[in-house]
């Protein structure tokens, strides 16, 4: 009896498993993918598409198409993007855009591999800084032809942002925003310290000493539980501050025009790094702060620097009375770090012209509706949107919208994100932890940049 059961059971499980394992793939495809996001607020329904220029409303000629769209947004950004997509789908009955949210840390690897395997999306997002690499790898397609076929006008975009996406005279992306590095301040704490002017702006001299003085007073006058300056101790944000100051000093990009030679201006780089290192060592910034966002959000930090995307988060925080402004002009010229989100049309197996037309109309629509996108804090890519009543009605944004013109972009090196993530971060982190001198770090960075460029 026992034996018989054994035979049966093993034969049965084997066949069951075989069929289950190979059949499982096609089973639960798709439809649960986007359900979770539908709850996003569509309070933004007021924004009507300006239908600027002669962009066609029906690029598909009556044909129904579905566009798959990969995004890397979460939180407020994710909700706003979904709201714009929902609105687009409503106003363009022939085009359905399906949003797939990917995790941002893995987004580019996934995009590149998926496009390589021939199962990439119809529409995707790229940061301007990632674009040269994606172009080089054959991930993104050229847009000029499809843009002129649908009447998308490149002149309606901010040229500083647009130019950063043009490589060798060819358009590869539609910028929808710029998200520069700016400064936030807690009005209540500044007032307590007597450093808030009647205009609601910080009382601070815009200079190297002025900013340090400002922080010193905050530290002195506020309780010790308050962090004068909330800033990450590693990677992105302090790097962005360094890049801003380095650019304010007139520093070059870290690669030369030939895109093959490391060209870090070591003196200026060291000067900027020294300035920031002092902010850390003098105790203005909380050491190894694991949650610098929460620090500012919960009202225990006087100022904070990060990308504009935090604006929306602060606004939705009850009891946080804050202001926003460009990074102070510490050195000679105004400049800051910034990047842009752009819409790209990845290379697909069969280049479906109808889909491509629909996609570029969608991309242009996102730029035209930048006022919705700006709710998270981003600066729209079209000057006409910045001038619109709807954008002006949003608080705070106008205080920093001008920064769009002073963002210093990197040169279109295919390696520029690697230069940043694998070299700059690594050595500058050591400077912030006071384990390496700025001069030493610059020398090591120069060598590491060159090694990376030679690979």
């Amino acid at each position, binding site marked *: 009896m*026992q*034996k018989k059961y*054994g*035979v049966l059971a*093993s*034969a049965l*499980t*084997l066949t069951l*498993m*075989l069929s*289950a*394992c*190979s059949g*499982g*793939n096609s089973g*639960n*495809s*798709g439809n*649960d*993918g986007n359900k*979770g996001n539908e709850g996003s607020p569509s309070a933004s329904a007021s924004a009507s598409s300006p239908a600027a220029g002669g962009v066609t409303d029906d690029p598909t000629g009556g044909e129904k198409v579905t566009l798959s769209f990969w995004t890397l947004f979460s939180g407020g950004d994710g909700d706003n993007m979904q709201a714009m997509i929902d609105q687009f789908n409503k106003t363009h009955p022939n085009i359905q855009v399906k949003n797939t949210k*990917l*995790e941002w*840390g*893995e987004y580019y*690897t*996934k995009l590149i*591999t*998926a496009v*390589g*395997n021939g*199962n990439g999306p119809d529409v995707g997002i790229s940061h301007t800084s990632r674009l040269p690499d994606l172009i080089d790898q054959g991930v993104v397609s050229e847009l000029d032809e499809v843009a002129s076929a649908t009447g998308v006008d490149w002149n309606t975009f901010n040229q500083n942002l647009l130019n950063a996406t043009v490589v060798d005279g060819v358009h590869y992306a539609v910028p929808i925003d710029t998200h520069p590095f700016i400064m936030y301040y807690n009005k209540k704490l500044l007032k307590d310290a007597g450093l808030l002017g009647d205009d609601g702006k910080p009382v601070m001299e815009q200079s190297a000493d002025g900013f340090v003085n400002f922080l010193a007073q905050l530290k002195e006058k506020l309780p010790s539980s308050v962090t004068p300056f909330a800033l*990450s101790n590693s990677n992105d944000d302090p790097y962005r501050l360094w890049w801003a100051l380095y650019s304010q000093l007139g520093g070059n990009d870290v690669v030369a025009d030939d895109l093959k030679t490391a060209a870090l201006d070591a003196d200026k780089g060291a000067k900027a790094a020294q300035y920031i290192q002092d902010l850390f060592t003098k105790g203005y910034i909380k050491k190894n702060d*694991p*949650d*610098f*966002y*929460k620090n500012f959000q*919960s009202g225990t930090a006087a100022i904070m620097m990060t990308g504009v995307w935090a604006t929306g988060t602060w606004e939705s925080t009850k009891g946080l009375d804050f202001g926003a402004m460009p990074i102070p002009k510490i050195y000679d010229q105004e400049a800051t770090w910034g990047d842009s989100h752009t819409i790209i049309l990845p290379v697909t197996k069969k280049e479906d012209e109808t889909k491509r037309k629909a996609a570029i109309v969608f991309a242009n629509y996102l730029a035209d509706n930048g006022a919705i996108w700006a709710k998270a804090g981003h600066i729209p890519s079209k000057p006409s949107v910045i001038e619109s009543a709807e954008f002006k009605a949003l608080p705070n944004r106008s205080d920093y919208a001008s920064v769009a013109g002073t963002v210093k972009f990197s040169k279109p090196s295919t390696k520029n994100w690697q230069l940043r993530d694998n070299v700059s971060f690594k050595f500058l982190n050591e400077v912030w932890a006071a384990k390496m001198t700025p001069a030493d770090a610059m020398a090591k960075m120069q060598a590491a940049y060159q090694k990376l460029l030679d690979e």
Partner: protein
Amino acid sequence: MKWFYRIVSLFAGLLFVTPLIWMLVVSVKKEGMKITSLVDWFTPPYSLAVYDEILRTTKLTNWIWNSFFVAICVTALTVAFAAMAGFVMSKLPFRYKSLVFFVILSGLLIPGEAVIIPLYQVAKDMGILNSYQGLIFPALASPMAVIVLKSFFDGVPNDLLESVQIDGGGTWRIFTSIMIPLTRPALASMAILTFVGSWNNFLWPFLSVTDDRFFTLPMGIPTLMNQYTEDYVKPMVINAIASLPIIVLFVIFERQIVKGVSLSGIKG
């Protein structure tokens, strides 16, 4: 002296469960509370709201299911394939046997990590990236399982097989009605180890799957986490949800699991 041992033992025991208790306690805390001391975690207010939110808004349960599904398929197929192969290597004379044995044996020396890059290329060429097949099939090639099971089969006396043969039973019957029942503990041990290995397998799913419908837990969890956070409630809820099914299984099957693991040492 006896008391000293007892206290040390108790301390070690508590030390091992503390992280898990902390995880569970934090996971039922109300979100967004100000935590200034360790004691704050262990005092009310408590709430299950985040559990509800995570279960509703994320794919965590899908991923738990995927992890189980993949682990069960991998376990069943690995043990089945390895048992069949181990059986003939042990009991059946055939041509080129020593060559086949050598080929399988040398596979023991190839660590999965060393072939994972070309494996990616191969799976891509076969078009099985982003699929359950892609998650399961490459994990089945376990020469270790064949060798271990072969050595267990070696322990089954040949007389037994011959008595079945005299009865007129074929090779398949010998395999299923003698070999499998007699080596059941070894097979169970192999199954448990394979299951845990698959449950924890990270690198291959991480490389081969980009579509979150096919995520398994080890790759899904990091996508939900924010490394820079002081509010641990959400992360701990995610950890807790991901761990509870396997903890329950452990409690139910503890005796078998422990036996399985200790058996693996004998032939290891």
